[in-house]
């Protein structure tokens, strides 16, 4: 069976040119970049080139990029890093949103156990967070606000710049989990006005196991991994040079193709939605339809069915019923709950996420498969 992959928000294949960039470092360029010999220095240069490429995609400077093992570690470093640095004994305050990924929620829960306060800001039924609502949560001891840039399930893009402006008026640092937006839409740290931004390679055609944290110059953090002083002392551990080179190349590709790929994917996504809506009618709901959204993401609720059953009838189609990191739970995803979606509608919700290799034919085929399964189940 040829798989029809519409789960790019869970993970992406590695682009051929990214594979090429990685290959030499899995073969003859294998030295430890910390070594002072010629072979080590060559790997050090590759590391710094890649750092520059990632920085360039974000509009940041090279020394503002810290490589990590992925988005989860980057979020842990940002959130724990700020709170543990500025209030080492506990007692600081953190604001997050109700839409955050577990990689933000769980560090926040960790901090709560350690004596920090956490406030959670909600969103409207369209998945948008009101910057004024964030500002209303700020206190004299608030150290950090962490709001995701684009949601992994519904693709809604938050007004990060406005939120950041209000936070900065109160001297509060701002972090954004941009794991889903980097490589899909523009993510310029100066336009977003953020102090910290997390990204992960495997959401934009680089391997799993590599990510980065943008740390604006002057922002101090307590490291999560202690050891020899790699990454400016912020992240110990032998650098994963092949994956870092891959991340750099992926950043270059993303930077080049952002506008064009975004337009193409939005067209394909809208065609898929139109096909579904033509057949199913106005009962078909799109979560966050009226909000700014990622061009590749479609979170639809098909009436009268359970999305699990639907996918069981379409084994060829790879899509997701919630965030991929979720194990089978009967509970509604926190994102849908934050939108005020009813249990019935949550069960019928399917996430279809497109990517660089999605074709028109695949979209037609996906629509056919979904519609015939829906007909059969209804």
């Amino acid at each position: 069976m040829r798989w029809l992959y519409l789960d790019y928000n869970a993970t992406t294949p590695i682009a051929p040119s990214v594979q090429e960039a990685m290959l030499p470092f899995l073969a003859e360029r294998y030295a430890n970049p910390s070594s002072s010999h010629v072979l080590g220095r060559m790997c050090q240069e590759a590391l710094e080139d890649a750092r520059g490429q990632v920085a360039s995609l974000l509009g940041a400077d090279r020394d503002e990029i810290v490589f990590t093992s992925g988005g989860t570690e980057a979020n842990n470093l940002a959130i724990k890093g700020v709170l543990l640095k500025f209030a080492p004994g506990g007692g600081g305050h953190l604001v997050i949103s109700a839409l955050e990924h577990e990689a933000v929620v769980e560090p926040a829960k960790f901090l709560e156990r350690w004596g920090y306060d956490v406030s959670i800001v909600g969103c409207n039924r369209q998945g948008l967070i009101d910057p004024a609502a964030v500002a209303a949560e700020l206190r004299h001891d608030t150290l950090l606000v962490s709001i995701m840039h684009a949601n992994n399930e519904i693709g809604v893009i938050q007004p990060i710049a406005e939120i950041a402006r209000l936070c900065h008026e109160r001297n509060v640092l701002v972090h954004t989990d941009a794991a889903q937006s980097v490589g899909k839409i523009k993510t310029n740290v100066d336009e977003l006005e953020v102090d910290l931004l997390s990204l992960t390679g495997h959401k934009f055609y680089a391997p799993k196991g590599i990510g980065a944290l943008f740390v604006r110059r002057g922002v101090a953090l307590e490291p999560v991994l202690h050891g020899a002083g790699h990454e400016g002392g912020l992240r110990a551990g032998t650098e994963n040079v092949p994956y870092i080179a891959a991340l750099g190349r992926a950043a270059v590709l993303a930077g080049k193709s952002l506008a064009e790929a975004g337009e193409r994917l939005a067209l394909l996504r809208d065609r898929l939605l139109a096909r579904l809506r033509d057949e199913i009618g106005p009962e078909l709901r799109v979560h966050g339809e009226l909000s700014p959204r990622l061009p590749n993401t479609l979170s639809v609720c098909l009436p009268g069915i359970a999305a699990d059953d639907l996918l069981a009838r379409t084994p060829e189609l790879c899509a997701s019923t919630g965030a991929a990191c979720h194990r089978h739970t009967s509970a509604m995803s926190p994102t849908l709950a934050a939108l005020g979606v009813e249990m019935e509608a949550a069960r019928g919700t399917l996430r279809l996420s497109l990517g660089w290799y999605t074709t028109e034919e695949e979209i037609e085929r996906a629509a056919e498969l979904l519609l015939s399964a829906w007909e059969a189940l209804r």
Partner: protein
Amino acid sequence: MPEAQVYLDNQSTTRVDPRVAEAMWPYFTEQYGNAGSTSHAYGAEAREAVAAARASLAAAIGAAPAEIVFTSGATESNNLALRGVAERPRRRGNHIVSVVTEHKAILDPLQRLERRGFEITLLPVAPASSSDVGLIDLDQLAAALRDKTCLVSVMLANNEIGVLQPLREIAEVCRARGVWLHTDATQAVGKLPVNVAELGIDLMSFSAHKMYGPKGIGALYVRRSSPPVRLEPQIDGGGQESGFRSGTLNVPGIVGFATALDLCLAEMAAETTRLRSLRDQLYAGLLKAVPDMLLNGPALDQPHLRLANNLNCTFPHVNGEALLLNMKTIAVSSGSACTSASPEPSHVLLGLGRSLDEARASLRFGLGRFNSPQDIDIAIAAVAQAVHHLRSLTSR
């Protein structure tokens, strides 16, 4: 890379064996699923690959699959072990015992714990002049343990001088006092047989890039039975790895890790003999060229006390950095790669009682799978030439 340079820095990192790269490749290209995706075949393929690798790695060290926690490498494994135990709300107390010659990835987390109020005891090792060079004293260990000791961490094989600590005896001492034992076995796994059950270890760090696997992947063995070791996770999120370590799994890295260890085990006996003879060739050649050279670490005829591929020597009256700069044809190091950016002399050699000058005049040779007798000849010539050149400059 310049083909001319002979790589003798295999304790810093190793080349990915082409067979390992080949095993990883499908997971970069075709089978790219997220092991956390439960609703489709791509996720299932990734999960199966991870499960097979986990079972294989576990079997290789005498553990159960559920006792393997994948991390981004040995540094993370060490952090998870040390701080994971130290930060448990219900622990025995705030005292940790380790050794002066540990890697920075142990010493730095311990220093930070010390700043937070933990008590850290670092055991000394026997001096260079002793026949037990580099080894800890078991009586000293026993005397250091207290009712409030929550963890002992002793490296199995040292990354600079290759000495092997008597882990089984150390484990007995710890077990008698009910104290958990962690070992950083990064330099040992893949080079010698390591069985956690036989050794009686509770926690063990190891990583792929020291055994011809990829960088960016490692594991922590966490004993899960009689009684299970409990840890406070250090990276929180989606709850992967039974909650011990969150983050999307590095599937190609995990597959490469298991393949790398499989190959090491299959070739271990023959490879150890081959490396030992290359090392003896290197030592003999160097000693002939520089008769006042000193050996750092256990005697070469004591295979049970040292790694076969390691040779660390002091060349009196020369500067190690200058020596490195004068050897264009070989890649070696003056100590641990992770600290080579810092000008300080090796804390391991100082721990053996070497003077600052002696420590600075030392080189570490790490021999590996892709080295040949010709490489050794090149290395001997390069060191001899550089030492004589530098000595001729200073004697003028």
